[in-house]
């Protein structure tokens, strides 16, 4: 009986060890809190607001390229009296993707879109969805800009130069026109030392830092004079149509056209960059009757 008791003491000790190891394992797992990670979309590419007539289910959709512009356009539209009357909801989408722009434009999804004449023409959006220009930024010229000398439009000149271009193919001044110039000089683009960047400001930065020798861009008298010389630019194209706001007008909704014109005009003026400096208004909204006046 004593022997049995002694054995049970050992058993207690042993089972306590087993339970302890099990407990240690269990606690080691329990003390580290589990992960409950729910990640929300980091960038919101769609903003919306409701007008005062929220019973109205009609939605006014806008497509712009940048977040900054989207945030300006949204409250302005929701507070506009004509929009309030006609729509219950405003949705603003933003994104730089060309494919997205084509979806919004070509399929008539956007009621208002900031785009280019070339894209309108390519998609025949004026004919298919009756997109009408509302306001247009002024025409501008494209240049080769250099830091040290006036670029020469000669084949040999470009061969040993590092050239900065824009990476999106719809840019006239930063992509299409310089490439057209190379082609006319009979230069093979594959043989040129081209650096692609994503924006006009990035191009200027690279030129200022001497990372490239020549860039292709527009010329902005106010801003560019401080960094570069007006003497060291060579024009490669003139009268390039700027971006335009297009409105889908299926009816003779002249009130809406004039309302949108006033909103977009205000935004364009507040931005103040010379590239978008002088504006062209396509609608006569000062005097009755409101009407489309076209290019001139």
């Amino acid at each position, binding site marked *: 009986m*004593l022997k049995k*008791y*002694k054995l049970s*003491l*050992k058993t*207690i*000790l042993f089972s*306590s*060890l087993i339970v*302890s*190891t099990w*407990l*240690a*394992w*269990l*606690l*080691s*797992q329990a*003390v*580290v*809190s*589990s*992960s*409950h*990670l*729910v*990640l*929300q*979309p*980091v*960038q919101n*590419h769609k903003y919306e607001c409701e007008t005062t007539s929220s019973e109205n289910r009609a939605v006014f959709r806008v497509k712009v390229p940048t977040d900054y512009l989207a945030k300006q356009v949204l409250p302005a539209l929701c507070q506009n009296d004509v929009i309030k009357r006609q729509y219950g909801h405003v949705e603003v989408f933003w*994104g*730089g*993707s060309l494919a997205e722009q084509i979806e919004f434009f070509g399929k008539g999804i956007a009621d208002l879109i900031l785009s280019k004449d070339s894209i309108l023409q390519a998609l025949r959006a004026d004919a298919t969805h009756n997109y009408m220009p509302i306001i247009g930024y002024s025409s501008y010229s494209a240049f080769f800009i250099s830091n040290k000398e006036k670029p020469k439009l000669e084949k040999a000149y470009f061969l040993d130069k590092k050239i900065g271009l824009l*990476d999106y193919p719809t840019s006239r001044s930063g992509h299409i026109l310089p490439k057209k110039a190379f082609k006319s000089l009979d230069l093979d683009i594959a043989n040129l030392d081209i*650096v*692609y*960047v*994503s*924006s006009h400001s*990035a191009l200027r930065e690279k030129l200022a830092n001497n990372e490239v020798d020549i860039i292709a861009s527009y010329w902005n008298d106010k801003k560019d004079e401080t960094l570069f010389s007006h003497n060291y630019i060579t024009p490669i194209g003139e009268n390039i149509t700027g971006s335009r706001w297009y409105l889908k007008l299926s009816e003779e909704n002249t009130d809406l056209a004039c309302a949108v014109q006033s909103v977009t005009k205000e935004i364009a003026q507040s931005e103040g960059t010379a590239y978008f400096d002088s504006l062209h208004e396509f609608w006569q909204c000062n005097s009755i009757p409101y009407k489309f006046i076209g290019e001139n």
Partner: protein
Amino acid sequence: MKLKPIYAYSLFVFISLLTIFYLGQNSKIQGIIELEKAQISKRVSLDVNSLPLAEPLFNYAGNQQEVDLYIERLNKQLSDSNARVTVSAISTSTPISNSFTELQANYKTVYVSFTENNTHILSTYIVTLLITLFNVWLYRKVFAKHVENKAKRTISTEVSIKPKLIIDLYTKTLLIDGREEQQSQLANKPLCFYLAMIEFSQVYPNINLHLNKDVPVELLEIAEKYFHRLAVLGHTVRKRPNFSNSLEKTLSEIRASLDEILREFPDLKVKLYPPKAHGEGSRSKLHSYGLKQISENDYDIKGK
């Protein structure tokens, strides 16, 4: 120097528990990190189309500032939810860091690099110490019990081994417990007298029994009592003996009987043997034949 068993045991338990705790926490943390990486990769996969990442095939330079802003916002979300993983870079070129996920799309492969925080929660390690302390406490408890048991066992074995005189009133024999083969019979008178001596010595340990004095009345009374007992048990009783008579003879009869059975147990003999008077002046007043050292454990009377 030899380690004390309790220290060795504590060390063993502590190191074992520490190892288990470390491994457990490590595996949990690694699991969390993998889970979070998967969640982040999922988020980045969904957002990658609107991220201006460099795309060599289409000559896209990408916009690092915007990508950095994206990463910053994503990390803000991650730190807000106490994630162990943060994104260090998103790119289309192979990253240098060794912790990254490859997201393969149609035309491009996007690499998401991570910074992992796999630090353990050190304060929780006190758990191992507590469990160790409990085990050591249990060990001490059990060990003490074990020692106690051992002591008990030795005592009980000693008790069982310790010889004991059995005085059987049914058979009027003396024998040692467990040694039934050696027996010694006594006549009524010495038997009763011896029993009376034992009992008397227990009740009056301070009274000396002298050969030159009269036997105490109390002793005689006890002897009488045992004599009656013998009669009750059915032994042939001729007449009531006079216990005061021929004391020397009675004692030597007792001694002879005890000599027979106590030969091998000198310790017991000291206690149970009526002392003899030795040498000169042996009949002096000082000599006592009483059993001074006797204790209750030394004898057992059957049929009392």
